[in-house]
């Protein structure tokens, strides 16, 4: 096993006293003060994350769109320059290779942001497909720092240090400009269930961007946040994490991501996914709450229904905003019925050799209060 890589912000994390862990092959901060406090800061004010472990690929040239249309389940052809889109990359059998975001920067110019743990697999897969598509592909992961600010006060804080009206950037749109004097691609995207921005910049400028953004948000309560809070935040928001809710043996339809799968286009995995949609799914992702509001159903724990093993938990934690444990997991769809796991249905989760009663609930667990965002 190779030694873990470090992001351009490693020294900043050390200075801030972060507790570190290895994630996706990178030495990353789990938390600076405490996961629960950081989680609450993102819900109530704003949090600042180093996401430089994530991978970035440039896709350019007259064949760029052709490659994306072939490789991805959502239709990149629907994007106008300046727009972003959540999408999935599938294998021929409909299994998930990765979930990612496509940013349309300009004519024949796209940026893909992929999971750190999948950089190598995605890169080789894309290059294989590209043998016929001939787009210009470039892996810029090592040269790119990614800093995310998430939470209701984000636009206000960044508005003070951006050289463009960042509050006017619509959700899932991008704008290229300077923030704290640093050249950035600012995208109104995120993974926390809150409003926020993800800022792509050159690795060499990452430290300056992070430190100046942190300073700018002091008055609003902005705090550095680690991957621990990122995980509890995304779980409350019902967002899938690759390696948990998504993997090679799980299709985006099973993961409840059908809205990001545009069938009837010739992308890889389309026939398999079309057949799944027509014949019914083998399993469905569901939200789970333990009835005692105390026991935590964690990844790998078995799910039982009517006394029979019916599935497995993929993620679970104590949810700070909701104040009780929450989990997501897959439930087999019975042979006799194609109805997906319905909210209110009783199940049980095996926790340390004990069957703990639990209930299927609707996802997401948390939805942010409505605000007047430009759209």
């Amino acid at each position: 096993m190779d030694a873990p890589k470090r992001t351009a912000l490693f020294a900043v994390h050390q200075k801030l006293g972060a507790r570190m862990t290895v994630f996706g092959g990178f030495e990353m901060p789990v938390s600076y003060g405490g996961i629960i406090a950081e989680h609450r800061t993102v819900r109530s004010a704003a949090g600042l994350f180093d996401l430089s472990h994530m991978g970035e690929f440039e896709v350019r040239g007259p064949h760029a769109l052709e490659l994306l249309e072939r490789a991805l389940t959502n239709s990149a052809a629907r994007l106008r320059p300046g727009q972003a889109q959540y999408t999935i990359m599938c294998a021929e059998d409909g299994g998930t290779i990765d979930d990612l975001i496509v940013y349309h920067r300009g004519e024949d110019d796209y940026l893909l942001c992929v999971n750190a743990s999948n950089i190598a697999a995605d890169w080789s897969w894309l290059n294989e497909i590209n043998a016929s598509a001939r787009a210009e592909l470039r892996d810029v992961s090592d040269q790119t720092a990614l800093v995310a600010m998430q939470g209701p006060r984000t636009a206000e804080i960044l508005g003070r240090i951006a050289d463009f009206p960042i509050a006017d950037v619509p959700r899932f749109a991008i704008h290229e400009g300077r923030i704290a004097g640093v050249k950035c691609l600012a995208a109104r995207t995120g993974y926390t269930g809150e409003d926020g921005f993800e800022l792509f910049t050159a690795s060499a400028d990452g430290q300056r961007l992070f430190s100046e953004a942190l300073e700018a948000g002091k008055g609003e309560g902005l705090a550095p946040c680690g991957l621990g809070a990122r995980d509890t935040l995304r779980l409350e928001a019902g967002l899938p994490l690759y390696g948990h809710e998504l993997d090679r043996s799980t299709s985006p339809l099973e993961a409840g991501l059908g809205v990001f799968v545009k069938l009837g286009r010739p992308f890889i995995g389309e026939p398999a996914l079309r057949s799944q949609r027509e014949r019914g799914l083998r399993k469905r992702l569901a939200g789970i709450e333990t009835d005692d509001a105390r026991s935590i159903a964690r990844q790998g724990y078995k799910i039982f229904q009517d006394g029979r093993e019916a599935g497995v938990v993929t993620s679970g934690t104590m949810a700070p905003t909701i104040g009780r444990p929450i989990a997501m997991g897959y439930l087999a769809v019975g042979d006799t019925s194609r109805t997906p796991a319905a909210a209110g249905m009783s199940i049980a989760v095996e926790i340390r050799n004990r069957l703990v009663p639990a209930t299927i609930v609707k996802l997401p667990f948390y939805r942010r209060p409505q605000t007047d965002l430009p759209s």
Partner: protein
Amino acid sequence: MEIPQGLKYSKEHEWVTAEDSVATIGITDHAQSQLGEIVYIELPAVGETVSKDDPFGVIESVKAVSDIYAPVSGTVVEVNEDLPESPEVVNEDPYGDGWLIKVKMNDATDLDDLMDSDEYAEMIAREQE
């Protein structure tokens, strides 16, 4: 990292203090700090027996599940009833209000196998090298 003198320590990061034949057991400051925010604790009931070096309970932080090991053998005579509602007390006061259980020891010589504060401090230092 606080390692009070006068307590006994186990390799699994529990502390013990004994009065007559009753041992009070908790987890160390180092252990709570490594775990992070504790959100759930499962402890045996009064009257159950615990065996030296076997797990007797479970502590969950936001990120992970960990067993708690018995540093001595005996019968549980008291359980900290505040912990199910307020598990964070173990983070805040691991050697005081965050104690876990009291055990009537079968054999007080179990204590002789445990470390004193200096030996425990040395062990942690070695682990962190």
